[in-house]
């Protein structure tokens, strides 16, 4: 039998648990744990939880972005950035002094690089 990946488990769990009532949920979770035990897949639990969170966010249309900047940004700027990426956006901010200025925004599949560091590098390439 082909092994199920963590993502497949997560998708299955999400789909069953999504519309379940309050009373059903413990039963579903019990069954799910039993299934994992039966397939000797309990060690994948951590990954499954991670996948479940990403999948749930995807399914509910929540975008996750990561904003990297040289200085900490104020809330207004962050809100403005979030608005560009849709209605439901969760952001994570990190500070990286080496980019000198500007911001780098990272979505699931793309990197939008508007940092001073990259632009200086490009200018250098153009001049040499």
């Amino acid at each position, binding site marked *: 039998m082909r092994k199920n990946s963590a993502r497949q488990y997560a998708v299955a769990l999400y789909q069953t648990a999504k519309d379940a009532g309050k009373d059903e949920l413990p039963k579903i979770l019990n069954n799910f744990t039993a299934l994992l035990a039966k397939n000797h897949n309990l060690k994948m639990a951590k990954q499954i939880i991670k996948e479940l969170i990403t999948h749930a966010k995807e399914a509910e249309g929540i975008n996750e972005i990561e904003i990297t900047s040289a200085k900490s940004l104020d809330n207004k700027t962050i809100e403005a950035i979030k608005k560009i990426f849709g209605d439901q956006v969760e952001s994570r901010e990190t500070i990286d002094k080496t980019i000198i200025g500007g911001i780098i925004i990272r979505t699931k*599949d793309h990197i939008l690089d508007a940092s001073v560091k990259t632009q200086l590098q490009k200018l250098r390439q153009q001049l040499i």
Partner: protein
Amino acid sequence: MKLMSIANIVEELKKNIASFEKNVETEEVGLITEVGDGIARMSGLTNCQSNEMLEFPGGTFGVALNLENETIGSVLLGEYKHLKEGDTVKRTGRILSVPVGEELIGRVVNPLGQPVDGGVEIKTKNFYPVEKIAPGVMTREPVTQPVQTGIKAIDAMIPIGRGQRELIIGDRQTGKTAVAIDTIINQKGKDMICVYVAIGQKESKIARTVAKLKEAGAMDYTIVVLAGASDPASTLYIAPYAGVAMAEYFMDQGKDVLCVYDDLSKQAWAYREISLLLRRPPGREAYPGDVFYLHSRLLERACRRNKESGGGSITALPIIETQSGDVTAYIPTNVISITDGQIFLESDLFYRGIRPALNVGISVSRVGAAAQIKPMKKVAGKLKLSMAQFRELEAFAQFSSDMDADTLKQITLGQRLVEILKQPQYEPMPVGNQVAVIYAVSNGFANAIDPKEIREWELKFHDFMTRTHTVLLDKIAAGNWDEAVEKDLRSACEDFAKK
């Protein structure tokens, strides 16, 4: 004046900087989920194409081979020890391609086109994709021009034409590479570019080969593509495709190219390794299901193109190493069925001193006969017949001592023919001399000579011919053959016999 120019430069620079566009870079990225054994798996990169180059941190490149539901599997070209889970991988949007051009001639490069001979950096204008669909039917034409290998036995009995694919197959240590190298050496002054692709060979052997090519002046028209035994499987796998891409550039200029792949069994091993690591299902001998396509798509790129499509040709000489003469193994049968003929080299013959250790009985060339020059066709017909008769009588002759005169004559002739087809390595022979010497022996001019002394006799014969009959040899090499030429040749042989 100097100050002025500096001011100018500053002005230019200012303008340049002012006009510099501050674009926001958008890049598609993915994350490594698994890395090791020269392959990496990653998530993300939803729009990645098959065979696309991927950029890993630290300047390492990879090629996307497996596009799956959630993940992408790729082979890494080069160092991968610094990569770890969670690293970002960028799409490049480029299909794997190699630099091509005249600058590569005389160089030793790796399959990515970077020099490995310690010479200067190679800067070419053009890049060709490594994988390309072979030319179609409408652009091709039949093989008509010969590739002179300079080896008597091959040029006479298994002729190769420009645009043909002729397999060289045999056990280890039977002189497969020697045949290919001699062929490359013999292309001097014949308007042919050669590409020698060394796959998974010892670097010491390559160094020796390159030195030999240099010594013979063959590096003036040769490119060596080297993927050594210590290189990762991914580079071994792409090496022949890189080589043929470099060859295609010259074909597009209307030139004739000779491509040697030494050897394709090692490439198949490398591909098997990659496929198993990428968890593709194994088939016969653990090779993946598309191992036939691996070689067919490569060899199909050898072709003779017609004038309307720009002309030019690529002749392919793939080499396959068999294990103790087993040609029924998976890879040998595959490649035999793809190519237009094969040259079988046998260790038995090699140890008996018959070098090149060619098995004339089972070696064939399916299209080369059309490309043979007329004089060679004439003398080779007789040679083939005499050899076949000799092979039949040979075993029988070992048992009986008293034979009738006819049989004895056949055997005497046969023994001398076997001797005359022997040829030392790195000594390719011009086609005129080949025709002359084969004509002389098969018409019995050497019957009085002891088989052991044939070599000496041959040297004297060539010496005599080149000294006194250069015009005749040139005529033969140009493809002229009529009664007058034959008469001249016969009288030359008679003159030599008298001496």
